[in-house]
């Protein structure tokens, strides 16, 4: 419940970021040199990283950008990428997993091996390489739009087997159940069985595992941004903020806020996913 409440809060924050920042912060890319002390290497003046009513979480060293605004705007990037990637994983995973379970035989063998291949792939290395060699303009997209699409594609494409395997297993047990047998003996087509008999029963596990996949994807997005292949600066993202902050580990406040944001979000989604599983699938308790 707490997890769900926090998620709703996060989504609201992301959706109304401009409004929130307008009243509680300053534009996320605006520099504030006056708040820094050049004599100590550009660290913020004042205690706790320059925390004040104007800058609730203090300011970044070097350029004085408002950390609060950047965390709020960073939520947009993190949630957007994680959600879209999850949707992509769920779609591919459900379709292929259900096909494998339903058809069996060589279809199952091929899809299962493909899943194994994807799971064995060193995804982080692949993602790094792909993001570096990717051109600046492609598929009619450019700049950050393209970067986001690329991240969604990479994360989504590599995480579908987790969902796929679960759906395949569920389908395998479901297709032997009486109601499916009954439908089949009445002459129902495979398509009918898939969409009308199986899918409604798969919604539960899909929802649960999608919810559990989101935090994984958030962490993955943060890792990629941290490694410098995320969105282009100056756009704020939590992973990118962490990467900037590690250079200044002696100023812990800089690392604290984006770190807390990631921590809180991942925890909330995990709690929510667990709760959802308990509610939808009492047997798994």
């Amino acid at each position, binding site marked *: 419940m707490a997890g769900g409440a926090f998620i709703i809060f996060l989504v609201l924050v992301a959706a109304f970021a401009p409004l929130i920042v307008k009243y509680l912060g300053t534009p996320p890319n605006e*520099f504030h040199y006056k708040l820094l002390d*050049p004599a100590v290497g550009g*660290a913020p003046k004042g205690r706790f990283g320059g925390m004040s009513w104007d800058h609730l979480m203090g300011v970044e060293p070097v*350029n004085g950008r408002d950390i609060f605004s950047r965390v709020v705007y960073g939520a947009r990037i993190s949630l957007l990428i994680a959600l879209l990637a999850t949707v992509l994983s769920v779609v591919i995973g459900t379709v292929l997993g259900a096909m494998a379970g339903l058809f069996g035989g060589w279809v199952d063998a091929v899809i299962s091996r493909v899943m194994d291949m994807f799971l064995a792939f060193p995804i982080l290395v692949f993602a790094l390489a792909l993001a570096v060699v990717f051109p600046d303009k492609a598929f009619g997209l450019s700049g950050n739009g393209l970067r986001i699409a690329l991240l969604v594609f990479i994360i989504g494409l590599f995480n579908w087997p987790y969902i796929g395997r679960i759906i395949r297993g569920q389908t395998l047990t479901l297709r032997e159940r009486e109601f499916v047998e009954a439908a089949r003996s009445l002459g129902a087509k495979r398509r009918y069985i898939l969409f009308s008999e199986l899918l409604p029963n798969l919604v539960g596990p899909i929802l649960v595992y999608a919810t559990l996949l989101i935090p994984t994807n958030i962490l993955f997005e943060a890792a990629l941004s941290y490694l410098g292949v995320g969105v*282009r600066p100056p756009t704020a993202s939590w992973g990118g903020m962490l990467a900037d902050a590690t250079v*200044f580990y*002696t*100023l812990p406040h800089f690392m604290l806020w984006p770190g807390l944001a990631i921590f809180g979000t991942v925890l909330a989604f995990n709690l929510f996913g667990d709760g959802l599983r308990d509610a939808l699938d009492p047997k798994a308790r």
Partner: protein
Amino acid sequence: MEVALTKERALRQMRNKRTSVFAALVAIASMGLVSCGDDGGGGDGNGNASDAEFNAALDAVFNESDEAGGTLKFGTAGDWGDSVDPGNTYYGYSWNFARLYSRALVTFKVAPGKASEELVPDLATDLGEASDKGKTWTYHLREGLKFEDGTPITSADVKYAVERSIDKKVLTLGPAYFDNMLNWPEGYRGPYKDPDVNTDSAIETPDELTVVFHLKAPFAGFDYLAQLPQTAPVPKAKDTGAKYKEHVISSGPYKFTTYDAGKQYVLERNDQWSADTDPIRPALPDKITVQLNMNPDDVDNQVISGDLDVDVQGAGAQPAAITKVLQDENLKKWSDNPTLARTWYVSIIPAVKPLDNIDCRKAIMYGVDHTGFQNAFGGPIAGGDIATTMLPPIIPGHQDFDLFPAGDDMTGDLDAAKKALADCGMPDGFETKMAYRNERPKEKATAEAFQQSLSRVGIKLTLQPEPDGTYFSDTCGVPKWTKENGVGLCTNGWGADWNDGFGFESQIFDSRAIRESGNYNMSVNIPEVDQMLDAASNELDKAKREQMWGEIDKRVVQDAVVYPGIYAKGLLLRSRTATNVFVSEAYQMYDYIAMGAGQ
């Protein structure tokens, strides 16, 4: 390796804990004694905490002592920058460090501050004798010189060392001055590929102790070339080409006893070296260790804690340590803040539209917030002073000028920028891309500051991070790439090979050196400048020559193809225990051959 290190450290801590009670007792007992003995002690290598102050080792010798013995401990983040082979290295710290185990014909004087700029004979008895109007240079070697294996050092070993250094297929990393300037036989490719070619047209050895260099064109500053570690003798019989770095044959006071690639180097005394033949090196420590592949922040922390004496790279502390040190007076007094012969700048590439129009380039010159550039590099202490010229002030010939004044507060002259935009026919601004090295947070901050400040006049920058390792070979250093990708701005920086106008300008201003890839010069393509460079390097009169370097600098900046950012400074962390610590202006880091281990 990481695990082993951690374990070792844990053991050491345990041991320390066990002895700490005793240590405390001893400390209390000796407190009274110390306060009496301290007055007479001075300079006994005990750290001299009382003398420690900010910049104490900048123009004077800190913790002076002639006590020999002990171990001097160096450390470095990552692997050794290029190579410890004197014929195959292009890093300033590597040149500084190489003097511990190799001796070039001449070297920079071992003295603090400005005095270190003077060249003094090392392997040679005197500086070079010029003849034929500066086309021929003669050096005489000292008598009684020996390699670590006891064989005498002759002029043939010096000749061979220079010859091998020009084979850039085998020894790829060193500077190419000898390749280009000596009068080599047509098509000569070095002793590995052309062992039987007579090279007397370039280097003659009339007797065992005389080396004569023949140049293609007069070059007044040849002693600077003789100072390169490439002239340190290499015995032909022991040369193993690219693998020579694994066992460099020492001609200096120390020799390698351990070469554990990527982990550790250990140097110990070379008993064949004699102080009688070497008036320069005090050679105080018995042993020198270099710990490789450390975490950069760990290097700083260990110097602060006293576990390490010197960060061998000498490029200054990491941002984390800088903010920590500058905020604490007790730490700050153990640091030095030298100005470097390096300028951080941004190349404005005229081959990329609309920057082909000088007025559009001028709009950038006026529009950028200069203080933003400085902040990006860490402010006036850690970063450096605001630059309006390319040639840094510590290089003789530097002229002060400010062709594109950025207002009293240096935040940019927006009116002038807007006027330039109007002259360019783009009153509403334009769009271009700015590339920077992804692994360098300071360059990223610079690019962000450019983006912010130029947006004030409508110039819209898209930032493009590029990998550090291929920045010159594949992206910004490739004229075709910048043009095709519309990248009009690239962050850049240049340090002088030695503190002289030629050493700074020749590599980044000469348009004739622009190749298909690998260019440090990304934007300066002015025929007039090429001619001015030729005229200056042929000028034998030092004062006139220096004047000319300044003129060239002005001519380049006038074209608005470079945006000078800051004259770099570094914050060096001073060893807590080492003796004879001072900054050599020639290397802009601690002089490594002067230091003793102390304690």
